[in-house]
């Protein structure tokens, strides 16, 4: 519509529905990211594609909205003393390497088994990672809620790793621990690889920081924002180099998500440690269910199973709806606990 550019890439026209949808998803995604360090992105890419945005533009624009959001969230949470910048930057650099590795793996699978195979791979990774890590985090959150310990992050694995003195030892002040860099690198690379595969590295990054490095969930989720910023900036530069970023979509999503990320960051100062794990695990498990419903489509395309066309459409739609539901449930838990804690604090201040 707008001259010669549309001959190259199809950028969509904006209407009221598109703008409202992107703004709202941006807001809810931002709220969740501000709180647990990542999230929202996994709904935005398919969401934008359902509006008619080409896949690459959707991925590029999503990436481009992610890093300013992470930046704003990280600054906000830095003010609350929750961010370990050193940890975040080191992890971010290695996560960037992980992203490149992840892209290579994706390419290899794409060459070998085609688009459907690649989609199946992404979905299987989704389900596997989210179910394993999600249920582990959920179990821990429930345990912490029942018997609140002083430092929730003191898992035996993390403690043992911290005692191993291997040459580049890092002293992390905010995280309040000392650990060899060699144990950060695998976590960071896994984060990057997951980010390249399912767009949300935080689902490995935050649990990795909590259980392997031994950071509290509040510092882990805040530091994940720094990692997301570094990864997002690197990714955006690459995508923008190929001219794939639709700045209008990015700005609309950002308009909503910055409201959300601020609120999410404020929320972390009110809740107890286990609440972050709880919200994260809930979202992860529901998203895993959603991806499970997406599997039939790809299995059908690969002729591994034969299902009717309507059944596939229904499961695909259900998959997207459940994904949105995951985000909505996460957001409502955050908002409910934020406002409940605020009310309690006000009452306590009045009674004091």
């Amino acid at each position, binding site marked *: 519509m707008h001259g010669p550019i549309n001959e190259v890439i199809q*950028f969509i026209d904006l209407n009221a529905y598109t703008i409202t949808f992107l703004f709202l998803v941006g807001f809810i995604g931002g709220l969740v990211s501000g709180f647990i360090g990542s999230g929202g992105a996994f709904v935005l890419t398919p969401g934008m594609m359902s509006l008619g945005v080409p896949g690459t533009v959707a991925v590029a624009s999503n990436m481009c909205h992610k890093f300013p959001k992470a930046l704003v969230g990280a600054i906000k949470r830095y003010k609350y003393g929750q961010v370990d910048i050193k940890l975040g930057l080191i992890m971010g650099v290695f996560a960037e390497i992980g992203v490149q590795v992840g892209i290579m793996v994706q390419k290899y699978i794409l060459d070998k088994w085609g688009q459907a195979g690649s989609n199946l791979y992404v979905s299987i990774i989704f389900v596997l990672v989210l179910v394993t890590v999600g249920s582990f985090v959920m179990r821990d959150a429930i345990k912490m809620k029942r018997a609140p310990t002083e430092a929730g992050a003191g898992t035996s694995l993390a403690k043992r790793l911290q005692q191993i003195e291997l040459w580049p030892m890092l002293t992390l002040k905010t995280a309040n621990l000392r650990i060899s860099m060699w144990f950060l690198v695998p976590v960071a690379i896994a984060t990057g690889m997951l980010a390249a595969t399912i767009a949300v590295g935080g689902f490995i990054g935050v649990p990795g920081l909590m259980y392997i490095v031994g950071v509290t969930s509040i510092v882990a989720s805040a530091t994940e924002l720094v990692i997301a910023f570094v990864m997002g*900036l690197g990714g955006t530069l690459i995508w923008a180099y190929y001219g794939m970023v639709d*700045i209008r979509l990015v700005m609309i999503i950002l308009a909503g998500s910055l409201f959300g990320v*601020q609120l999410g960051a404020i929320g972390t100062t009110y809740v107890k440690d286990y609440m972050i794990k709880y919200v994260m695990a809930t979202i992860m498990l529901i998203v895993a269910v959603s991806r499970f419903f997406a599997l039939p489509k790809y299995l059908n395309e690969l002729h591994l199973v034969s299902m009717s066309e309507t059944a596939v459409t229904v499961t695909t739609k259900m998959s997207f709806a459940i994904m949105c539901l995951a985000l909505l449930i996460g957001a409502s838990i955050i908002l409910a606990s934020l406002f409940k804690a605020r009310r309690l604090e006000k009452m306590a201040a009045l009674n004091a």
Partner: protein
Amino acid sequence: MNNETDASRPNPQEDHLSGEPALSDRQRERPCIMVVTRNGHMSEHVMDYAVNVGHRLRYAILAVHVDTLPFFRDRGRRSRLFAAAMQESAALFRRKAEGKEVVVEHLGELGKIGSVVSRLCHSKKRIEFIVIDKGIRLEEIVRQAPVPVFPVLTSKQGLFNKTLFHHPKEKGVFAMSTTSRKRHLNHCFLFGALTTGLYAAVFANQDVVMTYFTKGGVFALLPVATVFAVSYFHGNFTSSFWSALGIEASKKGVAKRVEPEITVKETVVAPRPDTRPRVQVNA
């Protein structure tokens, strides 16, 4: 514990119930402790110390806030903030004292600490001793005070600038909420306007923007620079937007989270086994 002992002694409770005028009469006769601060918010450990001693000795308390820079050239902003902080601090002090049935009189003064103290000691009768808050040097006051002066030391006393200035992280529930709300509102309008301008500029020139921003190569810096601008303007706008609505971080939570860092430093710099407030005698 305190309530029980108070209940077992009928006299103070009767005094308390006998009404306001009786209190002020009694206050005139009673010896009192003068507590002096130059900060807007008096330190809580000083208040606690004064209230405890007042309770034990059955003394009244005269809390004095001295604005040492009344003509500071910022068009009265410092004075206004000081006055607001003083009100909050006085209210807190009164609440603390109420529990122990100690009478607190509050005064706001202007001028040099030494001269204010000397004037008050001569005009007010029966000031037995003076307790000074952090930020006041003993020498400033000792020469002009006719009664003993005690600083209250705790391990929580920090660096020099921390003792002189009220640190926002430690402001607790009694923040200077009225003034900061207004500032947030101003920020909200300023950055709101800037954000709107930026969005209007991009969306009004969609065609041009999309042509150049998607060219790739060096033009990749355009979208990246734009989103950085958005994150600055819109980020500040959203931040002050929630603050202006009164949705801010939990004060308790922030203080709690900042605490471990401070305690680590303290143990390294000056290990002090006993952290109770203590009195240093100079006279």
